[in-house]
């Protein structure tokens, strides 16, 4: 087995310079203490992200119910900011003004779905209080492959949550300040970068950052509803746009009943399509079940309470906004702004006043926070996948600030691509949305039903009913979404998820076979008898200080045979080397000059090594001097033959490469320093 090891012998300059503040001094009292300077990249990282967190700081603080509601429900509650708009957008396109008579029934249907989902998730929280989430539930009950489907579906939806939330938040901002309209993509990217940066820094799940915007939005939403209903009751709430004259005679829309609307051509398809678009409202319900461990004790009871609060809040806001929409008659614009919620705000608060501004700001904040929820969930879910060998292992690595940095970056990049591709338009993102969430709802709820059935713990019958019905309902909604939004963009997800799952299973097979090969009889291999002979070859290009270091290092080894090897590319240079070598006082180290008339140095050395290996009882070590340049661009000035030698040897069994670094200090050599063996 060939492997590549790197040794780091002490640098030639042992008179250590004064330690820089950013360097670690190992064994500080020793006169020749080694100074380990921190690389520039790390120093930059520390400037930007703050000092590294130690692993024992991982334990996160426990959250009380009010804070937990703020932390986990921003994603879910924020959906109310755009759900009504998306329902209206579909309906108005299909049936015109009669949309306003259908929006409330559709919202009620969605709230019913929400109600059953909440009931189902109450069960999940109780049964999986440690590691909840669709991935774990599905994996436990159906196995790894269905879990991949649930996980991938959720991951795509987390990406979409970021894109949709940021786009909707930007839309809220643009509604307030219309002149920003042409910069919406850039604003979105800025928000994504901001959130990703904050998460890389490790924004604590601690209260205030979340609590203020969330409760601010809830307060503004309730205020909007309160004022709106009061005005409705007193008959002061009128249409925002005075367009009634252009409507067909005798069809004042809010006087039209649902039945009449059907008569005007609201086909079942349009209604289902609108319902599917409204499905965006319930995304984020799963957030609490993912984070039960973050609650104060008793975790699952508190999490259940928080879930109820979240559900009631979302239901109230969603339904209330839809009801107000029937009065205000907001119009979803093709450009996405001004948003429906902002138009309702305008209608209710009576123009673009301070309250309206506050509503817009609150919307912006909660939507940005909603994106942040995904940044907490996506990396964790991805790390579950990776932990089960279904995603690149890098996703399990916690970074500088103890967060899953790679997952955060992956999410930010995917979301940014989506935002750019759709031009930051919420209505173009919505068709992709929700299908993944409902797929994972279906899987995890049926997983829960199976869990009840197999465990048969007290109350399992009602558990099966609740989760089974939740699964059934999710499946129906999922099918409706897939059917009605297929041509609008849902096909992307429907095509993408199976491809991704296929890709992940391939990845898994690769990981599994690697692991199997690596672990197969490892202990026996470690104790197996070693090869009889050890040959050390020092690759020498010319007799310079870097070669001298390698030779010096080689002389500390005790192999059966020690030789230097030089590939003769230029016969004059190799003649010169041969002459210099024959004058050296190194009786133990002869120099082999090997033919290299095809100028492939690495190949020539590999052939020489292969010759040594031919007897099948020889272990060969090739020492490769490696010049370490001080600056990145210095490296570019040289070819990296040393790397190529290592690469050429990597396929030979029992050929090993050791790099012997020589650090160029960037100063003229000091003739009084006798650190080389080049005495003449």
């Amino acid at each position, binding site marked *: 087995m060939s492997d590549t090891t790197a040794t780091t012998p002490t640098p030639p300059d042992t008179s250590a310079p004064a330690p820089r503040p950013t360097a670690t001094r190992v064994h500080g009292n020793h006169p020749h203490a080694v100074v380990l300077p921190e690389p520039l990249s790390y120093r930059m990282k520390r400037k930007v992200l703050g000092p590294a967190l130690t692993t024992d700081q991982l334990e996160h603080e426990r959250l009380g119910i009010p804070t937990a509601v703020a932390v986990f429900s921003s994603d879910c509650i924020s959906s109310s900011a755009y759900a009504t708009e998306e329902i209206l957008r579909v309906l108005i396109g299909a049936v015109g003004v009669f949309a306003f008579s259908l929006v409330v029934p559709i919202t009620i249907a969605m709230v019913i779905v929400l109600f059953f989902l909440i009931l189902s998730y109450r069960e999940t929280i109780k049964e999986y209080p440690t590691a909840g989430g669709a991935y774990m539930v599905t994996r436990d009950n159906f196995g790894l492959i269905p879990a991949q489907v649930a996980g991938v579906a959720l991951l795509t939806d987390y990406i979409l949550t970021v894109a949709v939330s940021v786009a909707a938040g930007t839309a809220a901002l643009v509604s307030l300040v219309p002149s920003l309209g042409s910069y919406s993509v850039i604003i979105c990217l800025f928000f994504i970068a901001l959130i990703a940066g904050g998460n890389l820094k490790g924004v604590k799940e601690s209260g205030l950052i979340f609590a203020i915007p969330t409760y601010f939005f809830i307060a503004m939403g309730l205020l909007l509803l309160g004022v709106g209903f009061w005005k409705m009751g007193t008959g002061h709430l009128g249409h925002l746009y005075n367009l009634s004259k252009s409507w067909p005679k005798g069809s004042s829309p809010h006087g039209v009943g649902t039945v009449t609307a059907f008569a005007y051509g609201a086909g079942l398809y349009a209604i289902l399509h609108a319902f599917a678009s409204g499905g965006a409202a319930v995304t984020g319900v799963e957030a609490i079940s993912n984070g039960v461990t973050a609650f104060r004790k008793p975790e699952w009871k508190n999490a259940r309470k928080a879930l109820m609060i979240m559900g009631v809040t979302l239901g109230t806001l969603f339904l209330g906004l839809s009801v107000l929409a029937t009065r205000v008659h907001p119009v979803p614009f093709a450009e996405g702004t001004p948003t429906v919620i902002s138009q309702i705000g305008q209608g209710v608060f009576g123009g673009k006043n301070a309250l309206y501004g506050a509503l817009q700001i609150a919307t912006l904040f909660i939507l940005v926070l909603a994106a942040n929820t995904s940044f907490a969930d996506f990396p964790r879910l991805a790390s579950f996948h990776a932990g089960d060998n279904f995603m690149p292992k890098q996703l399990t690595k916690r970074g500088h600030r103890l967060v899953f940095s790679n997952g955060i970056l992956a999410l930010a990049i995917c979301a940014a691509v989506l935002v750019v591709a759709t031009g930051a338009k919420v209505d173009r993102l919505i068709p992709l949305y929700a299908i993944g969430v409902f797929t994972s709802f279906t899987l995890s709820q049926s997983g829960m039903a199976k869990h009840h059935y197999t465990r048969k713990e007290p109350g399992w019958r009602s558990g099966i009913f609740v989760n089974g019905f939740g699964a059934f309902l999710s499946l129906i909604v999922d099918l409706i979404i897939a059917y009605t939004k297929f041509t609008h963009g849902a096909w992307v997800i429907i095509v993408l998820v199976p491809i991704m799952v296929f890709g992940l299973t391939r990845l898994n097979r690769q990981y599994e076979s690697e692991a199997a090969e690596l672990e197969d009889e490892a202990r026996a291999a470690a104790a197996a008898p070693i090869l009889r002979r050890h040959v050390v070859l020092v690759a020498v290009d010319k007799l310079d200080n870097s070669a001298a270091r390698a030779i010096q290092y080689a002389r500390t080894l005790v192999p059966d045979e020690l*030789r230097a090897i030089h590939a*003769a590319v230029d*016969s004059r240079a*190799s*003649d010169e080397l*041969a002459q210099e*070598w*024959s*004058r*050296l*006082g*190194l*009786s133990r*180290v*002869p*120099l*082999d*000059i*090997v*033919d*290299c*008339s095809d100028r492939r140095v690495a190949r020539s050395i590999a052939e*020489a090594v292969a010759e040594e290996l031919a*007897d099948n009882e020889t272990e060969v070590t090739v020492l490769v001097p490696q010049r370490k340049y001080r600056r990145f661009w210095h490296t570019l000035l040289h070819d990296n033959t040393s790397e190529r030698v290592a690469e050429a040897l990597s396929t030979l069994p029992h050929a090993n490469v050791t790099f012997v670094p020589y650090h160029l200090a960037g100063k003229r050599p000091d003739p009084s320093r006798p650190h080389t063996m080049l005495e003449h």
Partner: protein
Amino acid sequence: MTFGRRLRRRTSGVGTLWPDTTEALTEPTHDTKAIEDAPSRVPVLIGGKIKSVRVQPLAGVPTLKATISDDTGQVTIVFLGRRHVAGIETGRKILCEGVIGEQMGRRHMLNPAYRLL
């Protein structure tokens, strides 16, 4: 044979390192043996290319070793008592006459009579 396999065989890199060597050295004028077939302990004439030359440092026993290789195998020629022999350089083609001996699986020819080509 599939196309892929044929391509792999074509490009596998297994084969002659110096395809012209044999041709040049097995002309009737030189009565050389292929190194693989050259018997040990009897005088033989072999020919090949100098693949490597070993330089001993000053303190070592003065010896010059060079490896001669043709398509079929290789032999190390050893010049005892010499540090340098003019013309014994990598890449040169050479004819050597001498007796091949074996030592630890490696074949040597001590102080051969040689002719550089």
